[in-house]
């Protein structure tokens, strides 16, 4: 195609966008909403993954001893554990310290009232492991040591988080699927209207021997623009929204690890723009397919 022809294609595409301004805006907006939600879900999933990973690597095993275990045995156990393979460090938290922590959380008076002056807590040991992935194995070994009442390593939290992640994924795929179909249809309707508005012209073009691509390109460009604008808006809002949201979360929930990898963020945004272009191209090609069969 000649350069002049491309000029013609772009003019036709913009003219048509302008003529169907409201439909174009509606289609663009719906593409934007769909892609924004897609992007938000992607970032949500990435973050939950990230948090689960961070939690896992910070995990330690809490080994609770029987309440009646003498301090000397507790100290001996600490040494025994430190010599075990896979164990990085062990810290003994005496029951007195445990009570102090509890008192801080509950308030001195209430605690005294509830316990009647007797410390109900056991000593416990905090065990950090060398390889977080093998935390379960180490925990099993510790469980079998004498005087050990209970072993807790927070795996349940991580597992629950991963289960939530699975559901978020299913939900995301479902919702995004439906929205994608809706915005694709809106886009197709827009292009169909544009084709319909120019059906006489198309007819004549076919009679005088214009190629199918010559007829297609303006509509393809029109769909592409609608998709690109939608994708652009989604990407922009997502970038802005995510940065300001993580900023706010960092202020209040400072302990929550969040994904702040700009590369990932930018790829996601770029992906949304690309996704918009795809929706636009596919939608318009589908829309004009039927009309060009003469």
């Amino acid at each position: 195609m000649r350069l002049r022809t491309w000029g013609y294609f772009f003019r036709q595409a913009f003219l048509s966008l302008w003529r169907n301004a409201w439909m174009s805006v509606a289609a663009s907006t719906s593409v934007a909403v769909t892609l924004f939600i897609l992007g938000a879900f992607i970032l949500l999933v990435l973050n939950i993954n990230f948090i689960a990973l961070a939690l896992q690597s910070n995990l330690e095993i809490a080994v609770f001893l029987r309440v009646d275990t003498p301090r000397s045995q507790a100290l001996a156990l600490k040494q025994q554990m430190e010599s075990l393979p896979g164990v990085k460090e062990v810290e003994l938290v005496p029951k007195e310290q445990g009570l102090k922590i509890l008192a801080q959380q509950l308030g001195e008076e209430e605690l005294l009232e509830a316990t009647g002056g007797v410390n109900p807590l056991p000593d416990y040991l905090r065990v950090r492991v060398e390889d977080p992935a093998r935390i379960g194995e180490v925990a099993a070994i510790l469980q079998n040591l004498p005087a050990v009442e209970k072993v807790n390593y927070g795996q349940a939290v991580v597992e629950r988080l991963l289960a939530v992640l699975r559901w978020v994924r299913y939900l995301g795929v479902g919702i995004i699927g439906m929205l994608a179909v809706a915005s694709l249809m809106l886009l197709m309707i827009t292009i169909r209207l544009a084709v319909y508005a120019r059906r006489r012209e198309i007819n004549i073009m076919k009679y005088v021997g214009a190629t199918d691509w010559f007829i297609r390109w303006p509509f393809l460009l029109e769909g592409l623009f609608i998709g690109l604008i939608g994708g652009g808006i989604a990407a922009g809002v997502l970038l802005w929204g995510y940065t300001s949201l993580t900023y706010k979360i960092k202020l209040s929930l400072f302990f929550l690890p969040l994904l702040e990898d700009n590369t990932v963020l930018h790829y996601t945004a770029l992906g949304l723009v690309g996704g918009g272009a795809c929706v636009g191209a596919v939608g318009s090609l589908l829309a004009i397919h039927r009309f060009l069969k003469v």
Partner: protein
Amino acid sequence: MIQFFNVTKIYKGDIYALKDITVKIDKGEFVFLVGPSGAGKTTFIRLLFREELPTKGQILIAGRSITRLRSKEIPFLRRNIGVVFQDFRLLPDRTVYENVAFALQVLEVPPKEIKARVEEVLAQVGLSGRAHLFPHQLSGGEQQRTAIARAIVNRPRILVADEPTGNLDPATSREIISLLLDINRLGTTVIMATHAWDIVNSLKKRVIALDKGRLVRDDKEGVYGYEA
């Protein structure tokens, strides 16, 4: 130049629009295609420029089968065939000039050449002074001249006209046909479907008569008549 070999066209619902048509039209001929409404004239023309495919049989143009064309090749066939319709099919929001130029623009002809060719063809159909009027400002005859100009501006070897005078009064019809004869004299093969029997009879051109999809007559210097 144009050859139909045992061409049958059956539309959906078992409608036989053409039955076993074999006919040969030479380069430079002027042919009337006559027959009552529903005889298959329009179908014949639509087969010619590959708007429809025959159900059976072969159609050759310049020795090439057009039924075997790939869809990519169809536009290039159509660049060699100009088409004119009863209802003109002009773009209402464009001037005479723009309507004619449009046919070249979509073929990516350079603007300078478009201007020269459109002016030339408008002079040929006698519309030079009307170039900047819109279709609704023209008489029926002038509208049809515009449509003819659009059909021949790319200098096709074949011009087909499907009842081009169907919407025109007898005097204007005669003018349109005399324009088509002029175009034919310059070497273009012209095939015209028509009802205007008085004109057909007076011109002594070849007449191909169809009735209920069958070829019922083919006279070198015929008169109108499918009843014979």
